[in-house]
């Protein structure tokens, strides 16, 4: 529990600091905050091994932290520095760490699902018991590529777990207005175990995900878990200026009462909790300092990493 709380706390504070950095123009572009959904990434990744793989989304910071990514290098990535996980080439939407099995965040909804399926298959064919998890949102469940992947995974009994983070909205469209039938039924119709779980309760998530992971590891095929959760802030950092009216203050307040950090924090001794909070703050201070000290990449290297090798490289005179 301490470990789970600690991870959630790192995610929460990482995101809050990230928003500050975006607002201060230290981070370019936009980021999609994970605040409110910490229990999902944390619960799921708590039952994974380092050598298992995940695919993440546009809202990916939480997944990376929970899978064990180095937050110093995450900050460095967001700040566009050479020590970033992606050497400043990816930024928030593409942040990845293949060394710990994070095959990629993704700017395209649900596009990572088949990658996880392919990795899961490769793990099994190699004779290992490694498994893969793919994260996606309630919006993602209406993407063709995901639905096709349900079929491939079930047909080939892949060691794969589908985690749907149902935070109620795809940008402004509510899950109700986007999804016919129930998500659990939809997944179950492919013949895989499917269930919904309270996505604000990290332990509940860990239990559900744990069952799914155990099945996958035992060669019993894929499973689907819908985690019911909520994002406390806008779709992305730019939404603040947009004044959109798709959610009521009451609804937000209602979900904030079930803040996953408060639910988990209440299960700790106050002193224990305070100590963790303090330790996390120190970690983030240090990480951010590391990131800020890291160099910016050189413009002359802008073409690096496009290819493993490309011969001949360019036009005649270029």
């Amino acid at each position, binding site marked *: 529990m301490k470990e789970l709380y600690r991870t959630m706390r790192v995610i929460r504070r990482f995101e809050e600091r990230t928003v500050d950095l975006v607002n201060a123009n230290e*981070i*370019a*572009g*936009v980021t999609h905050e994970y605040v409110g959904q910490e229990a999902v990434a944390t619960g799921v990744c708590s039952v994974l091994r380092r050598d298992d793989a995940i695919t993440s989304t546009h809202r990916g910071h939480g997944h990376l932290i929970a899978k064990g990514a180095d937050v110093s290098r995450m900050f460095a*990535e967001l700040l*566009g*520095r050479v020590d970033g996980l*992606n050497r*400043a*080439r*990816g*930024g*928030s*939407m*593409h942040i990845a760490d293949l060394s710990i099995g994070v095959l990629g965040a*993704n*700017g*395209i*909804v*649900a596009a990572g699902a088949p990658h996880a399926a392919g990795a899961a298959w490769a793990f099994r064919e190699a004779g290992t018991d490694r498994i893969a998890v793919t994260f996606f949102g309630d*919006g*993602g469940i*209406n*993407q*063709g590529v995901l639905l096709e992947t349900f079929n491939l995974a079930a047909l080939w009994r892949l060691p794969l777990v589908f985690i749907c983070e149902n935070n109620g909205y*795809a*940008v*402004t*469209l509510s899950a109700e*207005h*986007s*999804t016919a039938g129930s998500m659990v039924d939809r997944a179950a119709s492919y013949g895989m175990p499917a269930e919904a779980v309270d996505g604000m309760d990290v332990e509940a998530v860990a239990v559900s995900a744990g069952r799914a992971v155990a099945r996958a590891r035992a060669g019993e095929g894929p499973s689907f878990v819908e985690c019911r959760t909520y994002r406390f802030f806008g779709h992305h950092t730019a939404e603040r200026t*947009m004044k*959109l*009216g*798709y959610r009521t203050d009451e609804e937000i307040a209602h979900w904030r009462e079930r803040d996953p950090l408060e639910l988990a924090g209440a299960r700790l001794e106050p002193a224990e909790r305070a100590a963790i909070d303090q330790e996390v703050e120190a970690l983030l201070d240090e990480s951010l300092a590391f990131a800020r000290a890291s160099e*910016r*990449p*050189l*413009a*002359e*290297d*802008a*073409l690096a990493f*496009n290819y493993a090798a490309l011969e001949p490289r360019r036009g005649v005179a270029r």
Partner: protein
Amino acid sequence: MLRYQAALAKALRDELANDEAVFVIGEDVRESLRGVSRGLAAEFGEERVLDTPISEQAFTGFATGAALVGRRAVIEFQIPALLFIAFEQIVDQAHKLRLMTGGQASVPVTYLVPGSGARLGLAGQHSDNPYSYFVHAGVKTVLPATAHDAYGLFAAAIRDDDPVVVFAPAAVLGVRDEVPDDPYVVPLGSGRIHREGTDVTVVAVGHLVHDALALAEEVAGEISVEVFDPRTLYPFDWELLAESISRTGRLVVYDDANRSCGFAAEIVATAAEELPLVAPPRRVTRADAVVPFAVDLERAVLPSRAQLATAVRQTLREEARP
């Protein structure tokens, strides 16, 4: 004076008012993140402004089907990459149906991409300028550079009986211009000379039109630059370009799309084949590279005014090859 984005919004509103067959479909179009369809659901009813699930293939095909039985669809794609997901439904279905049915089918669908190109920090999957793919497919493709043209070309696209892709570059969404109150169209396929010149024709695309104009001003004492804005990439206004080149004899194309087989390649190729150039033409384009996140890296792969200046000077120094 209207902002480019507001001009798009006005065109959409006017066309919805003008023709009951017109409807809008896309992600979050009721709340309207980009403002192009803001308020339209309230004004025209939710049945003419459809928020869809994240199902680009299906909703793109849905627009085709509605068009086949008499409606006129306007699809808003939230980001350019969504065109890749709907690619088959656009280039292989909507675009081909008229020919394949021997003229029976009409597919009046407009695909609006409000926010194409790079915007510092949006990285690999949100920075594409994918118009050349549609030019290659032979799909009508529009890329207005000013608010005035944005209104007129978007309206013309909606009224056109064929599929038309309209790209609104991210970098010009805020630019203001005089936009008449009364409805008008800018016909598809007509270019525009923003500034006349005698030494060299610069064909500039989208937001780069403004950049080319700035350069023309900068070098005015030294070089007389004609700034040519195609406005419609397919079909392209060859006549107007031929006239321009007959005056200047020199060509530089300034285009923020990938270089290989890009729009600039087409202009330079046709010019080399058919127009009376007195010096080799030049392209200033994006590198053939994925757009990296860090802003210095991003800038390095995008075409720049400095590169344009170099290309212009270079073409002026050169003569036709012996």
